């Protein structure tokens, strides 16, 4: 495997991304970035199958518009990792800021710990095979999956008494699903979101995702392979259809 190592210490994001692009163009299969400290836009618009190991804390919009690569972050991530991402995978060995997986259309974002507000907001789905997935090991703040139009958000609540305690889950959701470990209080649901029973069939459907998530962080998947989840989906696929009347 061709590996390229880049020391990002004190480097602005533009030259850093230029080096990453050059390495990818040069056939690198793995790129290791050391001393990353707040550089935004890492992997922005990047294509290919490269694996990028990020040692440090990347800045906002990690993997934005990304199409293919895998980024492993050994640290926390700033806001909006996976923003408008098309395909590929982000694995964050820590927590991430607000708007994680914003408008993501495909690919996977795995966050070991917690995420901020508006996680998975306006995630969307086009074809079945490119369903976007956001898995959060810990918990998430308000407006999780708001305006969601497709895909899957899964919150496992590891180490928490309750996986979700913040309000506004799935407000305006009109596609996709939010699956949360354990019970979810009714008052936490946003307008337009509805709880559904989590069935064996649902478990079968998400089991591969749970397994992949556990693989990344060394968890035993058996712990999570039961039906103790709450599934939240849209009350209607046309939440605004009855709001308007024509002139």
């Amino acid at each position, binding site marked *: 495997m061709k590996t390229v190592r880049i020391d990002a210490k004190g480097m602005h994001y533009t030259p850093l991304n230029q080096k990453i692009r050059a390495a990818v163009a040069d056939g690198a299969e793995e790129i290791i970035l050391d001393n990353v400290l707040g550089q935004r836009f890492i992997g922005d618009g990047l294509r290919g199958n490269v694996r990028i190991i990020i040692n440090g804390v990347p800045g906002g919009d990690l993997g934005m518009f990304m199409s293919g690569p895998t980024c492993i972050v050994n640290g926390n991530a700033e806001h909006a990792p996976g923003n408008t991402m098309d395909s590929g995978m982000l694995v964050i060995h820590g927590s991430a800021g607000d708007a994680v997986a914003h408008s993501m259309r495909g690919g996977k974002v795995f966050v070991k710990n917690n995420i901020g507000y508006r996680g998975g907001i306006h995630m969307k789905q*086009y074809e079945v095979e490119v369903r976007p997935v956001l898995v959060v090991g810990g918990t998430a703040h308000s407006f999780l999956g708001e305006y969601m*139009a497709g895909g899957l958000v899964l919150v496992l609540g590891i180490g928490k008494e309750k996986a979700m305690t913040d309000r506004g889950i799935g407000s305006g959701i009109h596609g996709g699903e939010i699956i949360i470990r354990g019970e979810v209080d009714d008052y936490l649901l946003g307008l337009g979101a509805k709880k559904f029973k989590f069935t064996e069939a649902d478990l079968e459907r998400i089991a591969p995702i749970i397994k992949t998530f556990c693989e990344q962080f060394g968890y035993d998947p058996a712990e999570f392979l039961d039906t103790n989840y709450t599934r939240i989906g849209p009350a209607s696929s046309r939440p605004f259809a009855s709001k308007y*009347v024509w*002139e």
Partner: protein
Amino acid sequence: MTLGSVPPKFKVSIDRDQCMDCGRCIENCSYGVYRREGDKILIESRKCTACLRCVSMCPRDAINITEKPVDYRSHPVWTREAREDIINQARSGKIILSGMGNARDLPIIYDHLLLDACQVTNPSIDPLREPMELRTYIGKKPSKLKFKKTESGDVELDTKLAPNLKLNTPIMIGHMSFGAISLNSQLSMAKAVKEIGTFMGTGEGGLHKKLYPYQDNMIVQVASGRFGVNIDYLERGAAIEIKIGQGAKPGIGGHLPGEKVNEEVSKTRMIPLGSDAISPAPHHDIYSIEDLVQLIRSLKEATEWKKPVFVKIAAVHNVAPIAAGIARSSADAVVIDGFRGGTGAAPKVFRDHVGIPIEAAVASVDQKLREQGVRNEISIIASGGIRNSADLAKSIALGADAVYIGTAALISLGCRVCGNCYRNLCPWGIATQRPDLVSRLDPEAGAVQVSNLIRGWTLELSELMGAAGINSIESLRGNRDRLRGYMLDEGMLKILDVLPAGA
């Protein structure tokens, strides 16, 4: 229903002496006004929208349409519209939606601005004889140029120039998405802008494959729903526009109803067939000016700083400081959409009451940017209700670099501004996805009409400039001395920085 019905909006009649019973009106009316019963064409006036398709296709000029055939008791406060809106909401309890731009009879500032011409003391320029420089560059301009000498003694530009769009005329076509309008409409406009050497916007509907041949003349839009946005889309565009707001509905998002999301629209927007396409009110990754900077830079970084990035905002009360913030945000152009800007659908109360006129907005933005010494950092594109070359010339004299036209371009394709764009029934094949209706618009013929319009305005602009003794668009830009206000109040004259007529 105790309310009964409101009177029909239009009365359609056929002059039976003229009518040759060809049935073209029945074929052409997608609203179902006409039907044949026995040997007679019957009329259901209530369904008429005054799109005038039947009138324009009738070979005998036999059709007549009159507006408001039934009078209400006249009243200056309780207008027909006020009463009918109340009746509508009493029935439904809902938000009233409407199409096209602001329909209120408010004074139009353009109509109160007059252009200058040379007499005696300075000669006018004949554009037939003298070259008129209309070429316009949209994007950042350096505050100064540095040169260096090469070893061979040549002089070379040392300053790194930001990417700019090169326009042969300061007229572009604004963003109208595939979904809101048909592919044939977009194709017509795309062919026209390519031929003229200017640009058009994709709107927030993605870029259909059939438009790829015209991508060098397309500005791709990134709006809050991020529909159709991926790296391929961003790389195809000549420039990228972030839509923050729209003049027809400042401050709110958009909903493309599922009915309009057919297979092609679904593929291009990358959303499921028949699902509502909801653009939230804000971009949920932009909650501050710093976040806007981040989105702009993320787009530039994704496209390796090769493309200009525009930011489109609706003209609202504090438009000048907002634009000044945008000028410092790495954006290359700010698009200001006035309150007369059009739309496929907007809540009527927004369309008619929110935002400010483009004339005042452009003038105050240009003024503010000049005061702050950052006018060169950003181009200004004016849009929203630009109807003719005079509006264009006045916009530039008020400080715009170029304009976006929208409704005007649609009218050149056949639109009669009936305002029923949201119904998917546009009989002109413009605001519809119904294949039989879309096929009525031939992109080749449409392209000729759109380019004719732009060419006509360009010729008129040259003449207006020549008459004013100006041979370069740069000398007209922000040249308020070439404008005079007629019947404008002192406050407005001050905002526009224009003297009253006679002064």
